């Protein structure tokens, strides 16, 4: 049972661990997944920075290509020198810029002279010229001879621009600026390369994005909250906005002061909770699930089932089956009580409790049967063992005849059991030997024969029960209480009288003659009381006593002498002392016992036998009908 309990506890712990794992695993999985998404987004940001850098370099090369055009060089040189017709130069330059822009398809193209004065524009503000843009650092650097790129916020729009100096032999004659507005086209191109949604922002406002991101209205707030972080590192840490992972990156250049940002967004895969995980599994195609990964789990479950079944069978099932088997045998009458020794643990406790219950019910039934016994009981209860009086070894021989209580008719329910000859008799307390019931041990013919012989005794004809009385006797025997099963004992085929266990004949003394005999009597009585409750011996009739009393004295005397001689011989044989053993006392004791037994059991005579018990000489008195 302890093993089964340990197994149950182990299974409970395993189940609890599994449940805890089932609860925690999705969260851990979500956390790991978020980390992975964040790391991937950071790599995406790095890739985006590289992409913008490469793209800027491409625009620089394009501007350099435009700046190397000979027509532009000559025109800007003329504009720089001044005296030429600026309108004509403007037209020439603008035509040339349009020519290039047909291939570049950019939003802003401008050419300046060496002082930064715009000679011509194409695209944005195409009609304006002669104004100076040398204040732009990009233009100033281009006029110094550097190629570069920048981001310009113009009129609430973001332009990525590149500039190159225009060189005429040994001096700079101007600069060419080309620019492209950052629109949805840029965002889509970035998404195509990066694999993440892109939103472009300027001054806290989303100016372009891929698709219709649900978090567009949250991005300006996030950018404002991380403005300091963006100013320091030109990027933010990965953010979580409404189930999206977002990383903000700042555009490099002048527009950075106007919070020109690009936001890389990717949705977080919400594993979340166990129900969400289960729902996602249920939504998945069953064929696509990794069933093979469940093989170890199934094997573990099968192993647990096998071990559990074995344990349940060994610890609980098998003892229970055995107990059920014995209880069924008890119900069928094959057993009188459950074999407690064969049951252990709780089954043993149950068996003992059942046995106690059986005995208590039997005792109660017997008590009720005695209380309702008929007024004219039978002469002898054949189902009751006859008491045998013994003298404890080593003590002076005494013969005690314990009076038997009147028989009580048992409940009818016990009749079958009582009448069954196969029913073993219960153990008798003390050294009283068992005796079989009359009816169980003796056939009817023999019983009638003995009845006849009893009637043949002189003066006994009127006292011997007739066949009608016998029928009454039989009826009175029928409702006997359940038998008492002796563990061992001597079974006789005839009526057994109490045996006298005279282990020490020299100490045999008449009852009541010495204190020791009184003590023995007092000690023997409780032993006989148990027997009283189990034995139904009625007082013999006066006729039977009269018949017994008219025996031949000589024959009896001779029999007593023979028994005495046999007793002395046996004691000598056993090496026992013979002091105090006299014939007169011996015969007197036998007479008294004979009379008591005849009176008690209504037998015709009493036969005394000498035997050896446990190496000591004993005497047994057997009533003879």
């Amino acid at each position, binding site marked *: 049972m302890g093993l089964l309990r340990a197994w149950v506890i182990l299974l409970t712990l395993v189940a609890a661990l599994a449940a805890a794992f089932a609860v925690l695993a999705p969260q851990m999985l979500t956390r790991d997944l978020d980390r992975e998404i964040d790391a991937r987004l950071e790599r995406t940001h790095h890739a985006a920075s590289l992409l*913008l*850098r490469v793209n*800027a*370099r491409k625009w*620089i090369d394009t501007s*350099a290509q435009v700046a190397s055009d000979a027509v532009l060089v000559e025109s800007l040189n003329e504009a720089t020198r001044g005296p030429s017709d600026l309108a004509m130069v403007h037209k020439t330059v603008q035509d040339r810029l349009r020519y290039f822009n047909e291939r570049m398809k950019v939003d802003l193209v401008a050419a300046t002279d060496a002082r*930064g004065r715009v000679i011509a524009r194409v695209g944005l503000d195409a009609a*304006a010229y002669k*104004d*100076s*843009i*040398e*204040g*732009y*650092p*990009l233009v*100033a*650097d281009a006029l*110094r*001879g*550097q*190629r*570069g*790129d*920048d*981001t310009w*916020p113009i009129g609430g729009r973001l332009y990525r621009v590149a500039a*190159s*100096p225009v*060189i005429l032999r*040994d*001096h*700079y004659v101007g600069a060419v600026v080309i620019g492209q507005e950052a629109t949805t086209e840029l965002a889509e191109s970035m998404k195509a390369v990066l694999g993440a949604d892109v939103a472009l922002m300027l001054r806290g406002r989303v100016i372009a994005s891929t698709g219709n991101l649900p978090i567009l209205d949250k991005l300006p707030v996030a950018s404002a909250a991380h*403005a*300091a972080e963006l*100013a320091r590192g030109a990027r933010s840490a990965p953010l979580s906005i409404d189930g999206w992972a977002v990383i903000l990156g700042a555009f*490099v*250049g*002048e*527009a*950075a*002061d*106007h919070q020109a940002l690009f936001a890389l967004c990717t949705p977080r895969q919400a594993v979340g909770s166990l129900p969400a995980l289960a729902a996602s599994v249920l939504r998945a195609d069953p064929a696509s699930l990794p069933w093979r990964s469940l093989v170890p789990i199934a094997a573990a479950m099968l192993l647990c089932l096998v071990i559990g079944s074995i344990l349940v069978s060994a610890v609980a099932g098998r003892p229970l089956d055995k107990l059920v088997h014995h209880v069924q045998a008890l119900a069928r009458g094959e057993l009188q009580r459950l074999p407690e020794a064969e049951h252990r643990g709780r089954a043993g406790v149950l068996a003992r409790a059942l046995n106690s219950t059986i005995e208590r019910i039997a005792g109660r039934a017997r008590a009720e049967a005695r209380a309702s016994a008929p007024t004219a009981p039978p002469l002898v209860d054949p189902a009751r063992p006859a008491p045998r009086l013994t003298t404890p070894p080593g003590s002076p021989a005494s013969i005690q005849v314990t009076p038997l209580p009147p028989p009580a008719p048992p409940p009818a329910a016990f009749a079958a059991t009582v009448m069954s000859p196969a029913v073993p008799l219960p153990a008798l307390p003390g050294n009283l030997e068992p005796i079989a019931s009359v009816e169980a041990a003796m056939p009817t013919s023999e019983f009638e024969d003995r009845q006849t012989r009893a009637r043949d005794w002189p003066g006994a004809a009127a006292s011997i029960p007739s066949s009608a009385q016998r029928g009454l006797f039989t009826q009175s025997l029928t409702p006997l209480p359940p038998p008492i099963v002796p563990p061992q004992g001597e079974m006789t085929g005839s009526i057994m009288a109490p045996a006298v266990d005279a282990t020490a004949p020299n100490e045999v003394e008449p009852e009541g003659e010495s204190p020791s005999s009184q003590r023995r009597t007092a000690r023997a009585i409780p032993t006989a009381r148990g027997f009283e409750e189990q034995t139904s011996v009625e007082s013999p009739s006066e006729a039977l006593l009269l018949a017994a009393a008219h025996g031949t004295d000589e024959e009896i005397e001779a029999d007593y002498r023979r028994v005495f001689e046999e007793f002395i011989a046996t004691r000598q044989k056993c090496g026992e002392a013979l002091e105090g053993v006299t014939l007169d006392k011996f015969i007197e004791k036998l007479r008294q016992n004979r009379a008591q037994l005849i009176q008690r059991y209504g037998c015709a005579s009493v036969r005394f036998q000498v035997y050896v018990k446990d190496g000591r000489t004993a005497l047994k008195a057997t009533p003879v009908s």
Partner: protein
Amino acid sequence: MSLPRAPGALLALLAILLGGRAADAGVVRGQLAIPSDRGDPPSEGLWRIDNGILPVAPKAIDPRSECLIVLVPRAARASKEAGKEETVTVELRGLRLQTSVIAVPLGATLEIKNEDRVPHTLYTAAPDETVLPMRPTPAGAARTERMQRPGTFLLLDDELPHVRGWLVVSEGGVAVRLDERGAFRAEVPDGRYGLRLFYRGAFVIERDVDVGSRPVELQLTLPPRTPAKREPVPEPVRPAAPAAASAPHDGGTR
């Protein structure tokens, strides 16, 4: 001594006398040396590439625009009302302030002319937004503001981030501009002055000079540029409505 010589002698005497009076105003002059490695911080952008054909011209500092020397008398003699009637004019042209360091006496009026074809919205950065509130100046227009608080203030343009300047409002003293070579000269009354060189948001040189009958010759060297990273521009405080920003002393835009 002939008569014709008398007027000459009188003139000479007069000149001596006058010269003695002029000696009460001392001269402070000097030269600012700009180290070759003391240029602007590298321009922002992903790329800056040499053209490969011609050498790139150095990004020189224009002392005329970016440097300012201020002589502040140690003994306060100027009052707050000294520059009350004075007007200092700066131009926005070429998408930049022609003078990035603007010296304005306390109480004087600052006039900003927009010579560009695009509007400018200059303002003083936080926490000094009230010195020059954010207000647009359309192309070709001008705005005036009266300087009522001494100090140095960063000027920003809400339209073009690269447009930056510094407003130096001095309480008394003399502001001296440098020429293209870094030379400067100032005539101030005799006395002890504190000379301070303002460059890109800070007084990088400070020393005391005693101005007397003899001119004071100074040789200044611009200290090396600190590799400080450019601080982020604070978000400007925008007015709720353009009309609400009008002040009694500003002239508004023209």
